[in-house]
């Protein structure tokens, strides 16, 4: 997993509430057995017209936002289907962080498992951010994860954010969660499993 320390770039506003993972990654891109080529599918119906040409109205196709590395999003971003393809696609498109008031649970976990930082800020601060990133002149910023700050390049305004220590550490280290669990906890899992089986033998009646 890619490590997240201090990342600079432009941010694009996307204030719509309840943007679901069907919209982020539509069904026609879900037929693979690998993670390849998903950048093309991101916001497909919004980014491209029916003939496949870029829709000039869509924010990520507009001058000043095409290379956005961050999205400032509306509430409940990523709701709906568990499809991690949505996050793989965002990552392949170069998105490193999402900033919003709330994120859907599965999507939020998927982001953190793939090195995408999700930052939750109160609505008033998101409004301030949306206004700033709504112009190409004001949309550059730097996220410093160790310091837990977002600094606007144009006017120097800083936002502080909270993040759980464990998630922060995993993102900074770009940790492989499976190997961490196996290395640190395999014996504990075995011990737990023995007791769990004794307490609930019916859960294990299949073995």
């Amino acid at each position, binding site marked *: 997993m890619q490590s997240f320390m201090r990342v600079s770039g432009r941010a694009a506003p996307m*204030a*719509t*509430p*309840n943007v*679901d993972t*069907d*919209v982020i990654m*539509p*069904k026609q891109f*879900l*037929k*693979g*057995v*690998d*993670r390849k080529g998903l950048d093309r599918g991101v916001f497909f*119906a919004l980014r491209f017209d029916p003939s496949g040409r870029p829709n000039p109205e869509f924010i990520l196709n507009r001058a000043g936002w095409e290379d956005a590395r961050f999205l400032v999003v*509306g*509430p*409940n971003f990523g*709701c*709906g*289907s*568990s*499809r*991690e393809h949505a996050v793989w696609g965002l990552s392949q498109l170069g998105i490193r962080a999402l900033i919003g008031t*709330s*994120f*859907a*649970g*599965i*999507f939020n*976990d*998927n982001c953190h*498992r*793939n090195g995408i930082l999700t930052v939750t800020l109160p609505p008033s601060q998101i409004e301030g951010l949306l206004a700033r990133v709504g112009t190409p002149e004001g949309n550059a910023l730097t996220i410093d994860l160790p310091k837990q700050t977002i600094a606007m390049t144009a006017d120097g305004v800083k936002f502080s954010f909270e993040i*759980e*220590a*464990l998630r922060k550490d995993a993102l900074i280290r770009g940790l492989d*969660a*499976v*190997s961490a*669990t*196996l290395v640190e*906890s395999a014996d*504990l*899992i075995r*011990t*737990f*499993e023995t*007791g*769990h089986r*004794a*307490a*609930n*033998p*019916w*859960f294990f*009646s*299949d*073995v």
Partner: protein
Amino acid sequence: MRSTHEFILRQHWELPKVPSIVSGSEKEAKRPEMEKPRTLYDKIIDAHIVRRLDGDAQCLLYIDRTILNEYTSPQAFSGLRDAGRNVWRPAAALMVVDHVNPTAAQRTREMPDAGAAGQVAYFADNARDFGIELFDILDPRQGVEHVVAPEQGLVMPGMVVAAGDSHTTAYGALGALGFGIGTSDIEHYLATQTLVYRRLKTMRITIDGAPLPGVTAKDIVMEVIRRIGADGATGYAVEFAGETIANLSVEGRMTICTMIVEAGARGAVIAADQKVLDYIEGRPRAPKGQMWLDACRAWLSLTSDSEARFDREEALRADDVVPMVSWGTSPDQASTITGRVPAPRGEPDGARRNAMIRALDYMGLVPGMAVDSIVIDHAFIGSCTNARIEDLRDAALILRGRRVAEGVRAIVVPGSSQVRRQAETEGLDRVFIDAGFEWRQSGCSMCLAMNDDILKAGDRCASSTNRNFEGRQGPGARTHLMSPAMVAAAAVSGHITDVRRFHEEV
């Protein structure tokens, strides 16, 4: 059944009582909070904590069961293969083909496209190479994963079930905690039998009162979602309680628990009762003999303590609920059947107002028009939310002796192959076919349309499914969510209509 009362009194503080609950190295972490009254959710979580990772916020959680499907699992297996890892407990998993398969009446191994064929083939390779049981497309037990798992007796009260599908919340209906996970977490589960888990806040939704005739579990959960919003339960595990829930069948509870994810809930639970035991007893994977009796005792004692505090409480009167229909592109954009399409100018929040304007434009609807005047050209009965036998019976009751309106294509996709056979035994297939419905094989089908059951742009569908997102049933297609009986009523009327009219005629 013996009185559960003594067990509740006796076991509240003892359960969980085995050493495994607080693992050896964590004894110092056994804190006074364990003595506090606890919610059902917290009891289930506490009984599955392998170790705490981050104070009380995150833990390594033992997962009892997963169900894998062909479209969210392949990259997880690839990850295992790349790292040379095994599956920790293959017998705890079941693999079911459901998302990409065709549902044509004649079953074959043929897939609609190369992508689907590749996924199904790789799925079978993974089942074989990692030693996991597979219900493939020709298996008589095949079906939508959340219909199949309870049907097989694989889900039991007190279990934690995590699976690569958001509607895994369904298993709350059986007193288990179910929740959806992404593919990275599937891989973590497969390799370690655990997940890195963040404890949720708790919300209790108490539903009392007798639903009016024509009002179903689907209408109740749609009304809950309309009231609390599509993010109303984000960050929460929801426990459903109250006399309405107690009086609902286990299948009706599954409809509610499945769909509450559309309010953002990351888990749902309903305390197991005699109905749940009756549902599970005798199913293929259910415990038998003395183990069954022991299990029942433990399961019935697993409830929220009467003094337990929830982070949030909501209440609903079921007798206030009328049949519901979604008009927008988010499941909370819904109305009563007697209502009208709302006007965006009534919405004070700017972003939400813009979302409404966009939704109405996408849906091709005008503010103020009566919901029951909306003309449809497709009717779909299916999905993990509403394709169990009771749903098919409800719809058949409306369809008996009636015909699908001209210009409407109507299809019914039973939730599992077993549901399909049961329906055929009851003669429901004849009712659907005589009414002009296509009687199809099981799968996720047109609920998410990543198979060949897909709508064209502009098509408008009355649908017993759970999501009305843009493009959900096909790019540009328009979905109206409602109960199976309401879909049947719309199919024969040619437009969305109040199913209660038909009940008066029956």
